[in-house]
């Protein structure tokens, strides 16, 4: 049990790649929390995908002990958060559990879209904010300019920002002192009934469901019988501990402390993040406000390439969903692709991460269908249907109108690329809301339809700005528009998995682009193949894939029959990786690549 005045809880927030995890490394290292020999870069990024992509996906908590200059030892609970927009939910939730934020800004880059988004969240959460300018070891570092930018663009005082290199360790002692001197201690009442916030939970193969909590009032001990106020679940606490960052048992957790518990909870689903944990008897009366739930905004179908692997896929998806409350799924069947799942994600990176994990951790080859957003279909009888899959679009004669989700997007970009960015937003049916400048950088705020952004907007943005733009968005609501379902016919057969919803004015361009793309993606067959895009039976674009002209081995390999046979067997096996539509075989990657626009 630690005195409240000796506790500091904070999150580390920043735009992607500005050095949050590296700063966490240094804080862990300089306080001797982890032995030198066990240190490695981005220690907290423990998932394979995180290490491989060099990004943080899950927020992570660590408890460190810091003997400060005032002679006292403080308990610091840090939460390293992800920078990518898809996982901003993790950031907002983490902020609810702490009182302050270290706002890391890469001093070679300056303020970016997620810097802004995170600061606003921190301000909303009533946080004390300590600006930390990172990467001063790099020649391009310009702290004066970045500090000025923070004051201009964000409007917070940057005069006492700390200049550090998370890489070399310069400035880290100042960060530790600032945490103690500038961030507030948590408040709470030890003698009040238990009130703890359920911050997060995950499934551990050995321990079962592990629940991460922040105690607000009261004390929790091993053996206590607890109650989840929202779900009503009641459990005895089996294990109580803190992350250092490996799990360490602890006898009790008091106000202001962050730790974990296990309580033979079967499924992650039985725990609701943001719920309030109290004791079964004599519990607290008023629950915490809870978190805004995360809603999946991007949907796509995941189908096994080999239909015999459907059950394996089901198993994989169920396991992953155990750990990731923001990922949703339901069974789907497609005429073309057989049985699979319609899955909902927080964004495209989230989609990619889940798909990668299924393919790698469960060894299942997947066909991913066109990502789609959720449309609201208003029927003539007044009913409203949420459309997750274009293939389910009801009969048009019964439809009154459609609404699509829109977002408020914030894009920060150096001046010289602004023209390209504005054009891109314009092309994607964007409406400009605001355009401001801070030095040589512009900040454009747009109202955009999510369906124009979901697929490749971010890639396009990166490519037209050579990677110099940053992007953040929030859902802003639904709006009626002229939306139609476009079908793709390959060799005169409709391929349901390639159907998309599209704005009427964009249909022809999209249709043409898809037909052209498919013409490249489908290998030549022994016959010619018409590829068409159609809206309600009317063909709006057409391409013809010519028949295979020549595919024969000229040389006779003096009897090297084995090699030749293996090559042909491979050619045949390659066909198995494709899906058969009538007489045409379509490669699995075509379903997603067909949508990529090179506008």
């Amino acid at each position: 049990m630690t005195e409240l005045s000796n506790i500091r809880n904070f999150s580390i927030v920043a735009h992607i790649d500005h050095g949050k995890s590296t700063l966490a490394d240094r804080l862990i290292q300089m306080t001797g929390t982890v032995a030198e020999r066990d240190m490695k870069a981005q220690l907290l990024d423990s998932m394979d995908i995180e290490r491989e992509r060099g990004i943080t996906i899950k927020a992570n908590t660590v408890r460190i002990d810091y003997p400060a200059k005032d002679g006292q030892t403080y308990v610091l609970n840090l939460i390293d958060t992800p920078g990518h927009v898809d996982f901003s939910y993790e950031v907002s939730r983490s902020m609810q559990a702490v009182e302050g934020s270290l706002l890391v800004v890469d001093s070679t880059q300056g303020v970016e879209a997620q810097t802004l988004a995170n600061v606003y969240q921190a301000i909303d959460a009533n946080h004390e904010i300590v600006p930390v300018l990172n990467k001063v070891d790099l020649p391009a570092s310009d702290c004066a300019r970045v500090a000025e930018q923070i004051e201009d663009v964000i409007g917070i005082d940057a005069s006492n920002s700390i200049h550090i290199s998370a890489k070399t360790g310069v400035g880290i002692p100042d960060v530790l002192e600032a945490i103690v001197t500038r961030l507030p201690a948590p408040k709470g009442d030890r003698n009040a009934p238990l009130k703890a916030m359920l911050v997060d939970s995950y499934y551990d193969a050995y321990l079962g469901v592990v629940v991460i909590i922040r105690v607000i009032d009261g004390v929790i001990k091993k053996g206590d019988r607890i109650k989840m106020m929202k779900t009503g679940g009641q459990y005895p606490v089996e294990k109580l501990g803190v992350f250092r960052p490996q799990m360490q048992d602890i006898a009790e957790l008091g106000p202001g402390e962050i730790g974990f518990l296990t309580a033979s909870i079967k499924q992650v689903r039985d725990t609701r993040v943001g719920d309030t944990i109290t004791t079964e008897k004599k519990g607290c009366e008023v629950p915490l406000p809870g978190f805004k739930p995360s809603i999946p905004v991007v949907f796509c179908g995941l189908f096994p390439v080999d239909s015999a692997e459907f059950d394996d896929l089901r198993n994989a998806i169920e396991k992953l969903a155990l750990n990731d409350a923001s990922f949703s799924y339901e069974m789907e069947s497609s005429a073309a692709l057989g049985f699979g799942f319609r899955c909902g994600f927080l964004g495209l990176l989230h989609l990619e991460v889940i798909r990668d994990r299924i393919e790698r951790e469960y060894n299942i080859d997947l066909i991913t269908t066109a990502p789609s957003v959720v449309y609201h279909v208003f029927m003539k009888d007044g009913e409203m249907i949420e459309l997750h899959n274009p293939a389910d679009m009801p009969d048009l004669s019964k439809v009154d109108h459609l609404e699509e989700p829109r977002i408020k997007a914030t894009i920060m970009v150096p001046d010289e690329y602004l023209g390209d960015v504005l054009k891109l937003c314009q092309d994607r049916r964007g409406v400009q809301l605001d355009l401001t400048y801070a030095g040589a950088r512009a900040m454009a705020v747009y109202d955009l339809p999510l369906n124009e952004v979901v697929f490749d907007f971010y890639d396009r943005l990166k490519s037209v700005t050579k990677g110099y733009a940053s992007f953040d968005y929030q859902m802003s609501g639904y709006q009626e528009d002229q939306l139609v379902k476009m079908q793709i016919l390959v060799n005169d057969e409709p391929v349901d998995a390639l159907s998309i919803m599209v704005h009427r004015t964009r249909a022809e361009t999209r249709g043409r682009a898809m037909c052209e793309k498919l013409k490249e993606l489908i290998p030549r067959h022994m016959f010619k193949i018409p590829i068409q895009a159609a809206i309600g039976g009317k063909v709006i674009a057409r391409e013809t894939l010519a028949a295979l002209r020549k595919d024969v081995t000229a040389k006779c390999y003096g009897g090297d029959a084995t090699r030749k046979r293996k090559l042909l067997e491979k050619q045949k096996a390659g066909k198995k990786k494709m899906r058969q539509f009538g007489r045409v075989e379509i490669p699995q990657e075509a379903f997603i690549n067909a949508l990529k626009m090179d506008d």
Partner: protein
Amino acid sequence: MAEDWRNGGFGLYIHWPFCMAKCPYCDFNSHVSRSIDQKAWLDAYLKELDRNAARTPDRVLKSVFFGGGTPSLMEPETVAAILNRVGQLWTPANDQEITLEANPTSVEAGRFQAYAEAGVNRVSMGLQSLRDDDLRRLGRMHTVAEGRRAFEIAKDCFGRVSFDLIYARQDQTVPEWKAELREALALAADHLSLYQLTIEAGTAFGDRYERGTLRGLPEDDDAAEMYEVTQEICAEFGMYDYEVSNYAKPGAESRHNQIYWHYGDYVGIGPGAHGRVTMNGIRHATDTWKQPQKWLDAVAAGTGENLVEAVSPTEQANEYLMMGLRLTEGIDLERFNQIGGRALNPRTLKELQDMGMIELESPYLKATRAGRLVLNAVIAELLLD
């Protein structure tokens, strides 16, 4: 089953892995070496012959083929000693064919008579082109004039002569190829191998292709057209296309290659040589060390082989299919069923037939002209799983 090799006959392939220079398109197992100890090589070949003969007793040897590399760099004495030993080890067929691949430089032409005396009765000469500029681009060490001269000498020395050309070369047009082919046919005897240039990974051309600096290769449509006109023009000269890339007057077909295409048995000797050998009624695939010195050392230690592996009935059937469909005459489906123990998928056959890719004349299955142009795709459809 056990006697299947009898259907295709029995042959011997001997690989000589050295060349004067490495041609930029070539991915055959060929190496450039300053000094070659012909005696050491001869000893190794003889040892391998003995070892192979011991496991293929009582066979009638239909053909011997010296391939490369450049076998015309072998001393005639080496060739003679090998053929001498071959004669002692296997019973020769009455019309035994003994082919040697030759490069058409003057040095090599000087040895032709001695090869003939050693027993070689057929030469396959790598002329490659009748255009000097193209010979240079193909990295060849000879001119057209030298090639023609060498071929004339060969005609005088050997009963049967053939030459190879590579077409669908960089910057070659259909009319240009037609003209060149007509000149070639005027020069030819009764057999020709006409190969479309294949860009192989790991060769100099392959590297340039990857980097995008190998320019002017004909598009598929042009290459296909060149293939079609080749068949037509050869036919005008009485040379029919008996295999994808081989043309002959009836009766002048290469017997050696037909052993492969008829899926017979063959022993492979020398670095990187493959074999298909039936032993104890089971067909085996054999492979040898590719690296010349490694092979020599391995032979000295007992065997040049690094693989002897039974080929399953399905694999055998697939190999028969893929080799046999290269021939205009096609494959015998009864034999196919017998080898593989099962038949080809009738639905696939029907589909391919409807598309005009194959013809079925029981019990024969053959690829049509159209089918032969996309033979890999046709075979990939048909292969047994």
